[in-house]
């Protein structure tokens, strides 16, 4: 399997008002392959979202770099964005645009036009079952339906890499289930999925490999079996707690 994401010693430092710099991400390195779901596990504020934002080029790294689908995030930001579908709890939708307008707008932004755009929009509509609501403004949609439109927005240009930052956060059981199924389908299609969450059950179900990030540093990385073996714990919650507390101590 080819590596679609290669992260090499990424560092992100935020200056603060107190004058002390905060290293939100500190020399993080990992790689993800095509057809793989790579889980990024960590507490709130561990550095997951900052890492993903650097990979999507919304933030620039203080040190280190990464390659996404062969493009360097420092040197080819636009190529990276073309190759990536990014979804997080903070990526919102335009309330006054309809579901179809949203998909068309972001499809065009990613260089998809004409008949190809029509086909992609129809495909996404069918896949997520939002055809019925295509002419409804996003502000009128339910939370679950909004999330579907948002996922559709992220994949309308058919990117080889998906970066999903807590995509089920705030969703009801059915909407969360639909999102998890979508992620599994992406793996089957050979996409590389970087999946960040703090919901252990989703990680256990979805992720081929897991990285545990804490206080900005990568504390452990491997398959679930490897992590169980290295910590001597069975349940992922225990594995996670062991990794975090061991390193902290």
């Amino acid at each position, binding site marked *: 399997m080819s590596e679609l994401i290669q992260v090499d010693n990424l560092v992100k430092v*935020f*200056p*603060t*008002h107190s*004058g002390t*710099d905060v290293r939100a991400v500190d020399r993080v390195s990992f790689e993800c392959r095509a057809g793989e779901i790579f889980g990024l596990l960590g507490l709130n504020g561990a550095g997951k979202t900052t890492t993903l*934002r650097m990979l*999507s080029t*919304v*933030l*620039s790294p203080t040190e280190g770099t990464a390659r996404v689908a062969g493009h360097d995030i420092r040197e080819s930001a*636009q*190529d990276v*964005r*073309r190759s*990536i579908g*990014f979804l*997080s709890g*903070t*990526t*919102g*939708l*335009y*309330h006054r645009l309809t579901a179809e307008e949203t998909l068309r707008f*972001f499809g065009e*932004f*990613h*260089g998809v036009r004409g008949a190809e755009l029509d086909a992609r929009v129809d495909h996404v509509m069918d896949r997520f079952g939002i055809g019925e609501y295509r002419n409804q403004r996003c502000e009128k949609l339910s939370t679950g339906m909004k999330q579907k439109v948002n996922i559709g*927005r992220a994949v309308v240009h058919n990117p080889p890499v998906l970066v999903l930052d807590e995509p089920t956060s705030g969703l009801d059981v059915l909407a969360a289930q639909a999102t998890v199924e979508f992620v599994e389908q992406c793996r089957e299609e050979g996409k590389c999925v970087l999946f960040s969450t703090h919901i252990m059950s989703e990680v256990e179900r979805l992720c081929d490999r897991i990285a545990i990030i804490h206080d900005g540093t990568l504390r452990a990385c491997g398959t679930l079996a490897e992590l169980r073996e290295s910590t001597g714990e069975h349940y992922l919650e225990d594995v996670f707690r062991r990794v975090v507390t061991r390193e902290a101590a």
Partner: protein
Amino acid sequence: MTGIRSALIRKEIREILRDRRAIVLSFLLPIFIYPVTFSFTSWLDRRDDAKTVEQSSRVAIHGELPTVRDALQGDQWIEVVATGNAPAALTDGRIDAWIDASQGWGQADSVPTIRLVFDATQEPGRVARDRVEAVLEQVREDESNRRYRDAGGQGALSDRVILAVVDVATEAETGGARAGQLIPMLLIMTLFVGGGTLSTDLVAGEKERGTLETLYLAPVPRSHIAFSKFMVVWGATAITGSLNLLSMLYCYRAGLITDSMTGNAGGLAISGAGVALSFVLIPPLAALVGGVLLGVSALARSLREAQLYLAPAMLLAMIPGLLATGQHVQLTPFTALLPLTNVALAIRDGLLAPVPAGLFVLVCLASIGWGLVATRWTTGILSREDTILGFDPEPFFARSRAGRRRAAFVGMSATVLIFFYLGALAQARDVIWGLVFTLWLLLPLLGAGTLRLAWSGGSLVKLLSLRRPRPGALLGGAFLGAGLVVPIRDGVYRLQQLFLPTPVAFGEELAGSLDELTLGWTILLFAVSPGIMEEMVFRGAFLGLLRRIGSTRSAVLISSAFFGVIHLSVFRFLPTFIIGLVAGTTVVRAGALLPAMVLHAVYNSLAIASDRLPESAQPLLAGGLAGWGASLILLAGGAMLIRRQSRGDT
């Protein structure tokens, strides 16, 4: 229930008190902005009124009537002017009013008339009317009494002489003048309100809803996003401005604006050209307003914050509108460059009379230029990570490169402003002691303050270039200082006269004070002191700080610009800027500050000497071929010595 309400109120108040931005922008700023704004405009009013009142009114007389002439000449504030064509002179502004005393004075059976003709759209005209009317009223009364007595006391007393006051301003001019007092300010405010609503939604609203981050995930340059937003805000602001103007003009035309505002209940005529000019000026004005609004909105993390920021921005933007409500600020090549003020003044003047084409073009170009500056600023803000994601911005004076740059510019700007006001105040009280205070106390304190703010550590000696120079560099500095005197005095100053003539009075006051000092004291105060202290601050602290945050070339340019500005006069800017460039380059090349101090001190000493000594005593400083030749040799020699020093260092 009372307890719950009270708890809720306490909670709300606690939240507000912990929101420093809200306190500053909503409570503190309004307290200060009005006193400051109105003090400034009142000061301009008083200054203008004082000027107008102190000046004599120039009045021409048509028709020979000795009593009128004698009465006018008896008033100290009226100057009777001889002119062949009084109406033309009034139009040209050569006189403020004229009197026609030619009708009916020769015939016994007709009622003689005195006509006072003035232009009510001009402040001097109105002042002249008040002054002359008072005098003429006395003449009319005296003449009426005399004629009544001559007639043996028969007939009515009041109809013997008629005094008619005639305003030459056309209906359109009067209407334009009145509309021009209010429309610029209203227009600026409506542009801010209309464009502000849109810009807050387009940036702060998008940030709040998370769509800005979504947008930034698309493979589109951020500058394109900022530009497209700017174009939308510009267009919408221009449309809202045009509709507001249209509506305002309709209200004037239809007489819907009340008496108290216009003094006219029946509707005002406004010239078509004035209206057209106002509409043409809206797009450039909207470009600037749109850019500013977008930038201010981009700084905010939420809609609420954007509204907090826009309120004071709008209050500040009222100042140019207020300036246009009177006639104390004129549209000149200088004011045509000032943002907002230029369009406000152009609209005010344009509604009254045609604006000179050159000034009009300058106003348009300046406004578009400011709009581009604002857009560039906005693009910069919209590219910042903190503004994209709406998290706490980097501390303003952070230890990052950008933070140090901000600290350096704030420190240098504060130095210039404080030096400008306190220095001018101190030197206005006493030139000599004021200079001692500003150079030896104020300037070093301000320089040290800037260093404290922007210095990020390391060797202070290195930053200030306090290394000991080689003798060759010192000699080079002296040569450069001596070589600059003639080119600056006979070249730069003379060239500057072509586009910025220096007033005759400029420098006379200073020269008068210098006469009290001996040459030695003068050189110590005006040459050695600036040579040490100004170089320590500008070529030491400022240049050193700027070299750490940018290229050496830009550091020399910027420190020289600040050096030029601090000389408290637009007439001195260019020469001192050039001296700053040479001194800055000297420090860079020599790697030491001392040669620049020598350069500065030698230049000032010789410049003083060239003013004080007779030409025979200073053949090489007197200019001419010998002076220029000697200067060029000195400059070349100085440059070589400095360059040689530089090579020696490497």
